[in-house]
């Protein structure tokens, strides 16, 4: 209970801190809209040459693009800033400050930074999903909506676990400046359904980098093409990944030696 309260308090401080910089909000909106515009133009170009891609229609792909934007917002506002701060503190030997606090260290290093304006992508993604669903027409059943919500949650947790494992790597490899670039490149594969990629790549972005679970699976739920087997598997995989990342974090922590102590 205390753990959750501390986490929420940290998040609130982060949000209030960012609220001071309003111009950044306008800039972020502009940049997010530009990114969406490019995505839409690419869809227009693709669908001027074909009517469907790997069994997905234009509107269904639009929903997928929306999910990708939502996840991008979650990663950029909460997950990535915290994990990059973690790698920097390991490099500079400053992690002691977090470790000596009387709460769970993994929780603490995961909530210290919030970049509120990056979360604009969550809103934009939501609008895109809504727009896509309206165009597809037909009613979304309660069950599908529920599956969508659950799949999104699993996806976000999986992405967090993946980032935590990467960032924990900084206990061994000190220089990690390339992480955002590397992740950003791979994350872009999520703009398309995993089915179009060749087998080796599909395997990679399903199990090594959980992009298939984070983006394609929720998009399948919201376009009513998800079966329960996939969702159950996603649940098992999420629990396993969380347990593994926590074990790995503790394992890495043992290698840490501070510079300030």
């Amino acid at each position, binding site marked *: 209970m205390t753990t959750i309260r501390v986490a929420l308090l940290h998040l609130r401080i982060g949000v209030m801190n960012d609220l001071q910089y309003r111009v950044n909000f306008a800039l972020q909106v502009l940049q997010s809209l530009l990114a969406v515009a490019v995505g839409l133009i690419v869809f227009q170009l693709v669908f001027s*040459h074909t009517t469907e891609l790997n069994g997905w229609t234009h509107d269904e792909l639009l929903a997928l693009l929306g999910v990708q934007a939502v996840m991008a917002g979650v990663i950029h506002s909460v997950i990535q800033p915290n994990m990059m701060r973690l790698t920097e503190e390991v490099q500079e030997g400053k992690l002691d400050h977090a470790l000596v606090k009387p709460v769970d260290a993994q929780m603490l290093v995961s909530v210290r930074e919030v970049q509120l304006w990056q979360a604009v992508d969550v809103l934009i993604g939501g609008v895109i999903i809504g727009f896509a669903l309206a165009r597809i027409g037909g009613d979304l059943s309660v069950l599908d909506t529920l599956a969508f919500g659950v799949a999104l949650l699993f996806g976000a947790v999986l992405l967090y676990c993946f980032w935590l494992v990467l960032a924990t790597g900084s206990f061994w490899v000190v220089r990690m400046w390339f992480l955002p670039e590397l*992740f950003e490149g791979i994350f872009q594969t999520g703009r398309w359904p995993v089915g179009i990629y060749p087998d080796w790549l599909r395997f990679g972005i399903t199990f090594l980098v959980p992009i298939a679970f984070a983006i394609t699976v929720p998009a399948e739920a919201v376009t009513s093409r998800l079966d329960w087997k996939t969702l159950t598997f996603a649940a098992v995989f999420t629990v396993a990944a969380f347990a593994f990342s926590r074990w790995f974090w503790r394992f890495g922590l043992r290698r840490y030696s501070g510079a300030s102590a």
Partner: protein
Amino acid sequence: MRTEMQAQFQYRAATYMYLLGMVAEPVIYLVVWSTIADQSGGAVGGLTAGQFAAYYIVWTLVRTMNIVFTPYGWEWRIREGQLSGQLLRPLHPIHYDVAQFAGGKIPWLVYYLPIAAILTVVFHPTFDVRPAEIVVFAVAIWGAYLIRTFNQSALGLVTFWTTRVGALFSLYIVLELLLSGRLLPLTLMPGWVQTLAWLLPFRWTFYFPIEALVGDLSNAELLAGLGMQLFWTLIGIGIFSLVWRHAIRRYTAVGN
């Protein structure tokens, strides 16, 4: 140039990871367009999956050559007052930028080769290259490098007035994605976009070098392309020095 070369060779693992992230971009485009080509009976807009593969594999090399000092670099340099020290040197700072990033190209090229080999094995490109095309390509990638350097540096100088350049740079990248052939071969674009692309510098930094190697351009077209690159390089230098002369008066730094 030499120092940058050695620095890049030192941090091999990190540089490779960075490159892997970069390679994702063309691989995604390639997969999407080959899927469409296969779905529509082998070709889209006259391009087969093999030709797409060739296009995007060469794309990767051109992109590597196209890495330049970004407007963000200028923003940092100007906001933090780093420019003061550089202004004291006998040569204009741009000389160091051009040389430094040019030096980085040779290690990058070495890193590129295995990636190109893997992509070739995986995606089966179709190549049909004449010696003249190789020569033009070897020149054109440096032309592309110079055009992009001066365009982005001129954009970076805007920081002298605004201290923030992110939004403007994003706009530049969007235009580049659409009008340079970075996103997809320009022949797949609507006619009016192709005409527009002809009139702007972007096309000469991606599409022309790639097309010089993988496409079927005549000698006259190849020479004309190099001419256009020279033209845009000169324009770039012109704009950059013009803006520089006005901008540098506004520069004030504290400390140092």
